[in-house]
């Protein structure tokens, strides 16, 4: 008996491979989307903190523009909390303020769940994403 035609049996397997590759592409897109979301949240939080956390006592004392660390942390965390990232797991927000310049850095990290990969045997259930944004307060000319 010849072997012609036996390749037909491989057709479903080949198609399945393409579907799995497509599923991996979707999961990468989900991970990229989560990365974008935490990046946007970090940028908005840094922008809010730099704009609204001016240390007014210091400013009225010597005219220096500096940020109040406690206020910056409060505003930064409130901004991320309002960003609607509830669908991400292990959300963590870190806000750091430099003392020598009016600069605030917000780092947001989280874990994004995959859609398809967790259905594969041994596949990962998610990916850790992290983004940082820095903003500086400046006096308008």
């Amino acid at each position, binding site marked *: 008996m010849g072997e012609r035609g036996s*390749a037909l049996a491989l057709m479903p397997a080949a198609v399945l491979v393409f579907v799995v590759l497509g599923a991996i592409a979707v999961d990468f897109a989900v991970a990229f*989307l989560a990365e974008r979301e935490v990046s946007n949240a970090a940028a908005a939080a840094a922008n809010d903190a730099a704009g609204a956390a001016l240390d007014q006592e210091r400013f009225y004392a010597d005219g220096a523009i500096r940020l109040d660390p406690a206020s910056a942390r409060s505003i930064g965390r409130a901004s991320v909390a309002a960003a609607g990232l509830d669908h991400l797991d292990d959300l963590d927000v870190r806000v750091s303020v430099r003392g020598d310049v009016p600069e605030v850095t917000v780092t947001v990290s989280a874990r994004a769940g995959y859609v398809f990969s967790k259905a594969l045997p041994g596949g990962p259930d998610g990916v850790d994403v992290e983004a940082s944004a820095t903003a500086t307060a400046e006096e308008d000319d």
Partner: protein
Amino acid sequence: MRPSDETGAVGGVEVLPFGFLVFVAGTLLLANAWGAVEGKVAASAAAREAARAYVESSGPADVALADARAAAAAAIEGHGRDPARMVLRPVGPLSFERCARVTFEVTYGVATVEVPWIGAFGDGFVATSARHSEVVDPYRSGVPLDPAGAGVQCDG
């Protein structure tokens, strides 16, 4: 290569329909998932543009809200989506005052296709949503202060 006839060609033909179904169902499933991801990207951009347009508007409040709606619609359109299927709504109080936190949520309905064996997702539509939040600059001009007397000391 040795010459051969078509012996064995029948063996395996019966799996072709299965392969076809896997191809169709798999492709539709991926297309639906990809559509939802794209809808989420568009909604995210629209929410961001709406919040940004609101806090940077010259005011007053109703004009700022109109600016936000226009910016969100433009963002959705820029992603090749239909603005008529977008719903923009403020989350929490919407106040056009310095230090006020403004949060917008955009919900966009993504059309889906019924998948063999699996069925339809959400009656043919999947709602994707995204939020964005910004604070009205406490030191900007042309915007009133909080009448309660909080000054420009923002508390987040």
